[in-house]
């Protein structure tokens, strides 16, 4: 079995180039191909693969890719993908993620997010809550499911939390039977790679930057526009910034912020006696330079 896995990886890398990502059980390969940005998920060979979230959603023959969503938002919100049944337009699957480091609301975990969602949907005129929020496991992640319906639309939302993001699978159909089919499609969720002790996923830390930075260089030349720009960064075990992800900004703002943040230095984050890699976020509230 393992032999076949490695053979598959080798063929894959040759066929698609080293920048692709996919099912990567080896730490060495994972180091080469790991993507650090949530929006980098792609449909590859019939499966939606997000290396960042370590999710693979194998698309059944019944589903086809829908219209691409908008770019990442100023509040760290991502539309990861949309799929619809091929033959009859009976429903849709929408997968989104909200970076909880930049969420404009106060919900701080997936249970509260679903509870708040339930409250909002129940208040919509004509909407019925068909299944109260209840714990589920989706693709190996614990989360919550809620079902609701109104004006002939039957919907389910599955919410899980990964790397300080709430990832939701929003299923909509015009009948309960089709909805059940879409729910079953979530059986096709899997991990892209197995947990790798030697190359772990960075620890997600909230509010670390404000108290633990050793060196901080402010970006300059942001132009005449006021802007709030969310930035994620991955910090190495020595406290240096190894990756900067400017989630939404103009090209000039992006360039200047990346250049500045790469010079930042943090106190290493120590876990169980050892410094570990971590990721955290900073919201740059930039004022116009001509004020």
């Amino acid at each position, binding site marked *: 079995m393992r032999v076949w*896995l490695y053979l*598959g990886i080798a063929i*894959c890398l040759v*066929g*698609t180039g080293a920048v*692709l990502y*996919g*099912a990567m059980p080896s730490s060495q390969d994972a180091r080469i191909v790991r993507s650090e940005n949530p929006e980098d998920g*792609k*449909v*590859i*060979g019939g499966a939606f*693969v997000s290396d960042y979230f370590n999710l*693979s959603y*194998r698309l059944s023959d019944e589903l086809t890719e829908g*219209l*691409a*969503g*908008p*770019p990442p*938002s*100023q509040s760290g*919100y991502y539309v990861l993908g*949309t799929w619809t049944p091929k033959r009859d*337009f*009976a429903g*849709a699957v*929408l997968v989104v993620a909200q970076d909880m480091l930049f969420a*404009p*609301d106060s*919900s701080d975990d997936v249970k509260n997010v679903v509870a708040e*969602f339930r409250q909002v*949907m129940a208040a*919509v*005129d004509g*909407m019925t809550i068909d299944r109260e929020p*209840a*714990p*589920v*496991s989706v*693709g190996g992640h614990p989360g919550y*499911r809620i079902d609701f319906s*109104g*004006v*002939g*639309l039957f919907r389910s939302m*599955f919410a899980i939390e990964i790397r300080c993001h*709430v990832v939701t699978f*929003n299923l*909509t159909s015009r009948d309960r039977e089709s909805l059940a089919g879409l729910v079953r499609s979530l059986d096709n*969720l*899997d*991990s*892209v790679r197995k947990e790798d002790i030697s190359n772990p996923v960075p620890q997600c830390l909230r509010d670390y930057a404000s108290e633990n930075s050793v060196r901080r260089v402010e970006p300059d030349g942001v132009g*005449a*526009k*006021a*802007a709030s720009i969310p930035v994620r960064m991955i910090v190495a075990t020595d406290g240096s910034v190894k990756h900067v992800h400017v989630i939404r900004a103009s090209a000039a703002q992006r360039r200047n912020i990346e250049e500045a943040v790469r010079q930042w230095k943090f106190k290493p984050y120590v876990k169980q006696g050892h410094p570990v890699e971590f990721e955290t976020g900073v919201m740059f509230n930039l004022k*116009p330079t001509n*004020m």
Partner: protein
Amino acid sequence: METIKLARTRTLAGLAAMLLGSAAWSGTALAQDASNPTASAATANTNATNANADANAVPANAAARGQNNNSTSASSRAPTDPGVRGGDPGAGGALPGLNDVERQYFDVAKDVFQEVDAGPDGLGPRFNLDSCSGCHSQPTIGGTSPATNPQVAVATVMGAKNVIPSFITANGPIREARFVRNRDGSPDGGVHSLFVITGRSDAPGCNIAQPNFAAELARNNVVFRIPTPVFGLGLVENISDGALEASLAANAQQKRALGISGRFNRNGNDGTIARFGWKAQNKSLLLFSGEAYNVEMGITNELFQNERESDPACQFKVTPNDSTPLVSENTASPSASFQNDIDLFAAFMRFSAPPTPASAPAAPVAQATGASNVAAGQTTGTATGASTTSNSAPTSSAASTSSTASTAPSAASTTMASAAADVSSVMTAAAGSSAAQPSSSASSDASITRGNQVFSNVGCQACHTKTFTTEKSPLTGQSNVTLQPLSDFALHEMGAGLADGVSQGSANGNEFRTAPLWGVGQRIFFLHDGRTKDLHEAIQQHASRGSEANAVINNYNLLSRDDKQALINYLRSL
């Protein structure tokens, strides 16, 4: 705990599937290319040009919009837009509750808003029309593009020899034209006025030429905007930034489940939220007035002092053309007698009443704070003795042939009681719209009530339904007024199909402000470039690659035909 089955053994299948990865990458790359501003602009232009040939036709350029095949089956069940409703718009007059001095001021401002300017007034040398009210006239003064386009007539008035560009037609929308890029490829985005005063009897010696629109159209370099209605904008101007921010953050979980985010266009000088114009590019009504006076009519003013076309042979008045009078102009309002035009334009908008829906009951006068039963488009306020509606809906009980709302709440039905006759009257009183057609799904109060419910359920209200309350106002009776403009006044990514490639302030080429829907029942042309007269088509155009509205439109497409019709009927009742 329910468990969604894991299929870890599918790793091998995933690996095998990756062998086909190259093809997937190619497809993705194509999709990304199509979302770049240039490509988007070309797409928008194509759609808009097609719409010009028949503004009521469905552009159906699904491939250009990235529409998937699934919408085909939905469109076969397309509802019918009954067209512009009849009845009193409730707008066009002054805000209820103003005192006599304020009303006098408004009346003078409204007169100035309707003045037709000529060469001696400073018109041009380049312009799109010669009065404010010419563009803002449907369904009444202060509205938007009328059924008959006045740009056709103004092209040759007073001996002018302007060639009418192909995208301007007698029964099409009033349009301004913007070029996406300059000849050297750098971003343009500015308005290029359609007409010149050359040849007019009031502009002797002026000899400048129109832009070569045919050449720019051939380069797919022209995008369009139609006039926005200005009713009720004083109330909008008086919403605090904090209220707008809270509104955008509200119901965040529901918006996220629909792919919706949004952000504000903020003023570059003070960082506060700009809220007027198709891209919320204008901070204030005064700025809006000054900019339009110069850009649309070519009349310089105290905000925009310099001529955009400075050929000295074409200047027939001192600059700025409009300035504050130091001697009374002896109008009916002593206050207005010392105001320049742009102040009065802004005052007309600021003092103007918002539209009221056909479905609105006689508006109760109430302390607005905490009011929860405000009908869409309706305002309530502290204006003692004032009614916010002037619902003169016909009492005819004609039509009402369709009712899909067996589950509609009775209370809501009551509030919609007058809508049936009003919307049905569209069939005979279409207010100049060629879109009004008899329909087997003619509106009923139940259908409109159901449509209101559909509007909320599919997610339209995530961006379009917002209740706001004004701050303390210097105008009588306008403090703490609740209004429902049906907009969050935020920018949203609207996808390649609507993108115009024009950046304004923080807004990029794909972003537009949520269009306020109050009064939409009496508008003829929809979307920023007026590409359609059909509300169903306008809804469909919200979906394309990169749009925040895709999931909502998916929901819409999943509706039964009756529910789609109910939604259209509801919108036409506004």
